[in-house]
């Protein structure tokens, strides 16, 4: 007979600690006792809706690091990556992300990046092998290339899924990990099928597909046990897409006119570029137009998603990104990176992270201070690394 400690005298927090630390197989009686007491505590601690829904705190995000400090970390890790022919890159990624996540703070608490470099390294090696085989196939054997392309198409929802799962699991806040519990079926429908079907509608259904994809991701993201819920509207996606396209067209036409390029002879546009000046200006114009429209879309959609997503009875969010600010930051970042041959990358990253953090606000209820996370299994780094090698990027806002 197991001698039970006096669990009735334990506070709720102590019960939790004990339950987490205990070996359930060795002490089944204690485990059961703990579970019963925890359940009764949980019931007592759930007062009815009016009180638990009350927002007790609101706060904007902050970024507490700076470009100079990040630069020294980034550049030294880059050197180590080069001298180890890329093997150290997994450790570099972990350190860089720990710095960025760890300096991002909201509601008084910082985020954590929890990945283990070895997981990432293994994932990267597998990704390199896949990529190399695919590339060589494309050059040596069109038939093998064709087969691999089809296989890649079928596998890409899986990679996207694994990538999301891994990245969520590696993100921590207040000692709880985020989780993504989507499945291959859902991933196939929302990351593959919907986008594919948009082709048949001449891409007019693309905003709908994007909305469905974002919604699927949010609805399957959890913070500990509680789930995120989204209330996004498809209409906003159409507005964002439409305005972004109009914006791009207007700016493009205006700049072409400013440069004196005539569109009547589309084939001769290249020839009309007299001298090197216009030839150099052209890529920057394309870049600016692309950034302008993508900034509009990104700002509009990110704001919409945050403003209409929540963790029920725990937290709600707000985002106030201004698309012009976003565009200016991105454009000047790229110029700085080009001019400094890449050395400005850490400052660019800090600047962008800070802007997005400060444009984000969270409002929490009392329940935010007592969220529970049952333990979960390890995510898989391979999916993440393979996904990034093939650019299957399922980015949210």
């Amino acid at each position: 007979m197991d001698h039970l400690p006096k669990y009735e005298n334990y506070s709720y927090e102590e019960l939790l600690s004990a339950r987490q630390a205990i070996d359930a197989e060795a002490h089944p009686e204690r485990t059961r006792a703990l579970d019963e007491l925890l359940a009764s505590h949980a019931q007592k601690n759930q007062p009815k809706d009016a009180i638990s829904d009350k927002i007790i705190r609101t706060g904007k995000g902050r970024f507490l690091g700076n470009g100079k400090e990040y630069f020294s970390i980034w550049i030294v890790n880059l050197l180590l990556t080069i001298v180890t022919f890329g093997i150290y890159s997994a450790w570099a990624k972990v350190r860089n992300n720990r710095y960025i996540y760890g300096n991002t703070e909201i509601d008084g608490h910082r985020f954590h990046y929890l990945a283990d470099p070895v997981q990432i390294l293994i994932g990267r090696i597998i990704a390199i092998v896949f990529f190399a085989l695919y590339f060589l196939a494309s050059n040596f054997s069109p038939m093998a290339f064709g087969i691999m392309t089809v296989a890649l198409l079928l596998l890409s929802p899986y990679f996207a899924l694994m990538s999301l799962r891994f990245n969520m699991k590696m993100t921590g806040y207040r000692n709880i990990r985020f989780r993504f519990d989507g499945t291959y079926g859902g991933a196939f429908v929302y990351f593959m099928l919907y986008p594919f079907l948009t082709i048949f509608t001449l891409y007019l259904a693309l905003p709908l597909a994007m909305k469905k994809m974002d919604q699927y991701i949010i609805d399957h993201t959890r913070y500990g046990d509680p789930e995120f819920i989204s209330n996004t509207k498809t209409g906003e996606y159409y507005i964002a897409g439409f305005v972004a396209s109009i914006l791009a067209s207007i700016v493009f036409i205006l700049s072409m006119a400013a440069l004196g390029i005539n569109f009547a002879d589309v084939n001769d546009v290249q020839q009309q570029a007299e001298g090197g000046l216009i030839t150099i200006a052209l890529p920057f114009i394309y870049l600016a137009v692309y950034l302008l429209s993508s900034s509009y879309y990104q700002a509009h959609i990110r704001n919409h998603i945050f403003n209409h997503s929540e963790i029920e009875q725990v937290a709600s969010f707000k985002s106030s990104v201004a698309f012009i600010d976003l565009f200016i930051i991105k454009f000047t970042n790229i110029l700085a990176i080009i001019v400094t041959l890449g050395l400005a990358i850490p400052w660019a990253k800090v600047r962008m992270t800070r802007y997005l953090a400060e444009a984000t606000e969270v409002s929490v209820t009392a329940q935010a201070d007592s969220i529970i996370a049952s333990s979960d299994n390890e995510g898989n780094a391979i999916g993440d690394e393979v996904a990034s090698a093939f650019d299957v990027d399922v980015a949210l806002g």
Partner: protein
Amino acid sequence: MTQFTSEGTLYLAGSSKALPVRAEFNGAELRVFDEQQNCVGSFVHEEINAKSKLGSLPRELLLPTRELLQISSSDAVNQWLDAHSKAKTHALESSKSTILFSIFLVPISLVGIFKYLLPYLAIQFAAIVPDGVKSVASQQTLTTLDYTALEPSDLSLETQTQIDAYFAQTVLAINGSLAQFNLHFRQSDMMGANAFALPDGTIVITDELVQLLEEDEDLLKAIFLHELGHVAHDHSMRLIAETLVTSLAIDYLIGDLGAMVELVAGFSSTVIQNQYSQELEWEADNFAIDMMIANGKDPIHFANAMEKFKAHYMGDAEEPDAVSFMSSHPITQQRIDNARAQSEQLKSHH
């Protein structure tokens, strides 16, 4: 006995509950007190798993109770935590000399890698690719092109036979064998006047190019020599290898930093690949010129062939110098000048 305290936050296990705490360090022991001065935990140095120091981030201590203790970084705290730690990365990241060293060495080593190391590795790779593989690759490529960009030639049998003879003479002139090199004729609206070489020694020339060169023997032979140069130096395999490692290298060195940087990465990848491709074109040009000189021919023919190209594609417009990094071929005028210069040099020696 060292004794000091630090303020911080204790995050309980499996829950988002966070307590403001005071951590008291006493020798090898750490005791954590909450705001009511209750002791909520007592640990010894060995059982604490501290994450490595990183910049000025607060220190994170993973406790055996699966709680997380986050305390401000201070010299005393850091020393206590890192006394037996082997992690040296923070020391490197905060050492001014290492940082300066990195600022210089990173660009230099990147240039060294892309300009020397990767091409060197690519040449080694190209050398070990078995002939069977090259053969399969070439055949499949030609088949694919025949489905997409190439039509059967419209040249008369006479013309083809005559040009075949020029080709055979050129192959023998470089001490090659007709078993490894063969010439195919095609017509192509998509490619226009063009000639290309496949890794197994297959050379393809379009009707449009034959007409552009007015079926002139010297001009055609100059072009053949250029293409044979590509095969002789295994350029196809080399470019494949260079492109592969470049893509991988760029992706892994700066691919983590978000879509915006990937735009720049994609652009630099293209620029680098164009540099590699231009380098190969120069090698083929110089191979042709050297062979012509060795066989008593005047390199001016190569210059003339290039002149016709230039006139055909560009009319009177000047090719801006700035464009060269966006193009897979060197600036045509430079190739013409190179051939002319070597022709002048040859004449002045006689």
